[in-house]
């Protein structure tokens, strides 16, 4: 996983309220995002995650507070630059596919940025190669699986070589195979290009693999930390309407039963390894 770099995005006391709503959808939120990290944002339905993502992309503007992207404040003037820095992949694979074919769709962002055609062709090719979709250049969207469409969406973002990619529940409509494909693609981009990933998700197993996690509750940051720190909260998380990954649950039940496991376990592997070690000691 990527090592923590400098601060790339910074939120300072950001507040946002939708017209006609009583509560702030995002309520005095402050945190930092570091270059090259994988940050998972979790929280119950309506906790303000998508609103936060839209604020980061300048699709909404805060009522008060500031968002800094590479030390520049996100305003109406800087928003178009920021959108080139921060790419976003949405939840529904169908509703973000603009082009009539795969390559047209990847080119859409480049066309908007006014990139010359020659360069566009190489960039589209490269991006599709990166997400392993280069054999589908002229395919139409309704002939692609959900996972393939999401990979095309990622290619569309990658073609613009942003520093940050936000995934707003981008894997939630996919089957396990499609989900794995997409996550694998993103992980590879992180390693090869050092992009920063912000992944908004309901899948805590996915979040457990992040470098850092932020738990949102009713529009505010409830807790920020490494997945290990976060999952130590167990009961609290459940009371916030979140589930807990199976290995974490199992490991804590085992500890309750008096089995001497030293720590919590985020993945099946960790748990299995520790158990094997324990058995070999007996």
């Amino acid at each position, binding site marked *: 996983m990527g090592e923590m770099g400098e601060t790339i995005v910074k939120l300072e006391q950001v507040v946002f309220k939708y017209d006609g709503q009583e509560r702030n959808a995002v309520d005095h939120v402050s945190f930092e995002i570091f270059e090259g990290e994988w940050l998972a944002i979790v929280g119950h339905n309506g906790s303000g995650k998508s609103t936060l993502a839209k604020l980061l992309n300048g699709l909404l503007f805060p009522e008060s507070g500031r968002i800094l992207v590479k030390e520049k404040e996100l305003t109406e003037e800087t928003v178009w630059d920021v959108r080139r820095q921060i790419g976003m992949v949405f939840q529904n694979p169908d509703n973000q596919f*603009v082009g009539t*074919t795969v390559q047209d769709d990847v080119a859409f962002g480049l066309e*908007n940025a006014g990139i010359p*055609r020659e360069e566009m*062709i190489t960039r589209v090719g490269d991006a599709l190669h990166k997400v392993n979709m280069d054999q589908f250049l002229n395919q139409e969207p309704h002939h692609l699986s959900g996972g393939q469409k999401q990979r095309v969406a990622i290619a569309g973002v990658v073609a613009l070589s942003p520093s940050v990619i936000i995934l707003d529940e981008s894997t939630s409509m996919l089957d396990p195979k499609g989900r794995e494909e997409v996550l694998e693609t993103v992980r590879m981009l992180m390693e090869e290009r050092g992009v920063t990933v912000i992944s908004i998700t309901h899948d805590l197993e996915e979040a457990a693999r992040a470098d850092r996690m932020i738990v949102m509750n009713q529009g505010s940051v409830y807790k920020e930390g490494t997945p290990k720190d976060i999952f130590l909260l167990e009961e609290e998380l459940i009371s916030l309407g979140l589930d807990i990954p199976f290995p974490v649950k199992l490991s804590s039940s085992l500890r309750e039963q008096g089995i001497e496991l030293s720590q919590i376990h985020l993945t099946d592997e960790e748990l299995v390894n520790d158990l094997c070690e324990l058995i070999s000691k007996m």
Partner: protein
Amino acid sequence: MMDKLIFGRYVPADSAIHKMDPRSKLIMVFLFVFVIFLANNVVSYALVAVFTLAIVKLSKVPARFLINGLKPVLILILFTFLLHLFFTKEGELLYKWNVIEIYSGGLRQGIFISLRFAFLIVITSILTLTTTPISLTDGLETLFNPLKKWKLPVHELALMMSISLRFIPTLLEETDKIMKAQAARGTEFSSGPVTSRMKAVVPLLIPLFVSSFKRAEELAVAMESRGYRGGEGRTKFRLLRWERKDTYLVLAICILGILLIVFRT
């Protein structure tokens, strides 16, 4: 059923006409619509027929697609034929029975007008059968580009068209899904009296509308997030290429026009 309605159109094939620039085809069809009205005798109609057949031959589109295209207008063609046959009273009397009188001029006129109709349908069908909707859109966009001066939103219209084209299959799929869901709840779409079938469409259209609006909203957000801010300063990925054969096609229709002016009476 709905598949055929829209996808029955483009027929992929490796032909000279397929490979032409959509602009040259559009110009040719546009001119053809005017040129054909110059034909008014056997020789000129023969020339138009030769031109039409040559285009059909070059396009390599199987005849059955053209016949399918003609079917819906067959009644119209027949109707105009009969209209001319019975009501044009020129030339010599060929046949008389009671009040029905058929003159040679009427027969001639009937045949000519029906042919004109058929040629028009065939040539326009060739356009849509050999050009993908998206390249038609591109062609129209570039041809209409000068009209931007008069505030015609050419880019926006073209984008609207290409997005509609992109979403037609998605919406058809969705219609199918909703239809099945409603059928599972006992709605009859394909049998029963017309009124109840019409009523059955309501629970189909409403969910479809609702979801289309949701899609539109999400798409707009996604487009904005991908940096879309109107046609200004945008470059284009799909390129139209005007080649020599495109010039030949436009020349051919011009020559046809000139020949018709010469040979018409």
